[in-house]
């Protein structure tokens, strides 16, 4: 009994504080989406805020857009990180430099990355100049804030690739050599070895990478605000503009709950789907 109390006392300032804060934030967000804990006016339970937000086109577009960015960015980052992690499984000359280069974006804050990127692709930026001087383009092309969000996806991949790389390379390096050599002895080519040996044995790390990147990309504000298509909002930019320009906390709460639901269920669904696909690929 005294021991339990001792452990609880130890956990209180760290874990306790974190849990109290997170549950309070969640509680207020969910309550405000149903009209409770209002900052102005009466606090009555109502579904009106959900009805109003669900009736808005920009809400659905934001949900669709955030889901699209999150799925594309997480799949791309994992797909790119796999071959690099496999290549760097065994050390070779220059492998340390290479892995340091891959991890470098971890050192760059998101806003700085977004600025560097729009700077490079701006109308008279270096990419346009290069394409003009090579004669590939006749006139500068407007690359910034493209309407498909390719710029945002590129930034997400740039920023998230190191995470996927770190998780996957830990898993890939833990693969026993004996297993890979045995597969080779039994006549499996590189593709078969990847499909039937590497993929199933590293699926856990891959799922973790997918989930983390999905959640990070779904909640993105900075990349969308700086490099995203001007005609669409991401859920985070929509939530912020609903709250700050319209002063509508309840509407913002609806978007917040939506974003958390997308993070939770979207990332889980993606991880399960990809797991299923790797099972199929194993044959």
């Amino acid at each position, binding site marked *: 009994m005294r021991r*339990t109390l001792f*452990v609880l*006392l*130890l*956990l209180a*300032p*760290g*874990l306790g*504080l*974190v*849990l109290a*804060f*997170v549950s309070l*934030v969640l509680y*207020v*967000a969910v309550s405000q989406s149903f009209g409770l*804990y209002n*900052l102005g006016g009466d606090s009555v339970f109502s579904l009106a805020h959900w009805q109003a937000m669900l009736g808005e086109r920009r809400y659905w577009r934001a949900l669709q857009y955030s889901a699209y960015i999150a799925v594309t960015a997480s799949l791309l980052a994992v797909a790119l990180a796999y071959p*690099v992690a496999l*290549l760097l499984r065994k050390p*070779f000359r*220059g492998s340390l430099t*290479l892995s340091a*280069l*891959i991890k*470098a*974006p971890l*050192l*760059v*804050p*998101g*806003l*700085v990355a977004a*600025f*560097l*990127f*729009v*700077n*490079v692709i*701006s109308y*008279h*930026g*270096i990419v346009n*100049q290069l394409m003009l001087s090579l004669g590939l383009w006749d006139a500068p092309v407007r690359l910034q804030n493209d309407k498909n969000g390719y710029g945002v996806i590129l930034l997400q991949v740039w920023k998230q690739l190191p995470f996927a790389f770190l998780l996957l390379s830990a898993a890939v390096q833990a693969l026993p050599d004996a297993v890979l050599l045995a597969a080779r002895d039994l006549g499996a080519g590189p593709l078969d070895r990847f499909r039937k040996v590497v993929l199933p044995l590293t699926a856990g790390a891959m799922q973790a990478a997918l989930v983390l990147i999905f*959640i990070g990309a779904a*909640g993105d*504000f*900075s990349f969308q*605000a*700086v490099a995203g298509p001007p005609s669409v909002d991401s859920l*985070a930019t929509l*939530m912020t503009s609903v*709250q*700050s320009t319209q002063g509508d*906390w309840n509407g*913002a*709460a609806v978007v*917040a709950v939506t*974003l*958390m639901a997308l993070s939770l269920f979207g990332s889980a669904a993606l991880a399960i789907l990809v797991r299923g696909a790797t099972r199929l690929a194993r044959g």
Partner: protein
Amino acid sequence: MSAKILQRLLVAVLVAVMLVWLIVPFAMAILWSMVDPSTAWTYPDLLPPKLSFERWWIMWQTTSLPTAILNSYSLAPIAALLTALLAAPTAFAFGRLDFPGKGLAQILILVPLVMPGFVVAIFFASILLQMGFFARYPAILFGHVILYLPYAVRILSVSFGQVRTDVVNAARDLGASPWQVFRVAYLPVLRPGIFAAFLVVFILSLEEFALAFVVGSPDFTTIPTILYSYLGYNFIRPNAAVVALILVVPNVLLMLGLERLLQSANPASVSGKG
């Protein structure tokens, strides 16, 4: 043989891509930050016609940049110190004790890592409004401490786990007081972990944007929020370049220091015993 050549080629291509990926963007930012305000850098000049640090000087004197730097660089060490202190008891429990529900507790501490930053920021602001708490500096400080507790707890748990029980017992047998036990058996093993936790929180607090932006609006500035102000509606490229470099350069140096620390956070090298 051909496989080896293929691999070399692949590596060469990768290195080239990574260089373009990193060096070109940074070179452009440095050039833009050094464009002399008297002569604009316009198309089709390949390089700025005149380079100077004039822009840096003007920004220092006429914008709220010094305040932002002061805010960021005072928030970061205080947040780091508080976080490390608050994380230590939980880390001790995770690293040295066994109790029912420990596995669950170790997962729950990570919850802030998967919460969307802007959701936390906006509803933290809402709670503050309801409480009538309008002091933004302590509010942001508190937010940073909570958000980065998971990192400090994780790092310090590992350190606490590396403390050797036989050394602790030996110290006790020899009649050491609790403080002496801590100094002799714990502190030498914990030290790199404490520094690493401090540095991680310091870096994360420096670059934190969502909370500082939402809770600090409209006029509390940190380095990231001032950078954002130059990237939004009034996009001023040279100013943004200056602030971006002010944000990223110390960050890179600190991270390299952190890498060193994490490599040295090895019990054998600290306690002198394998």
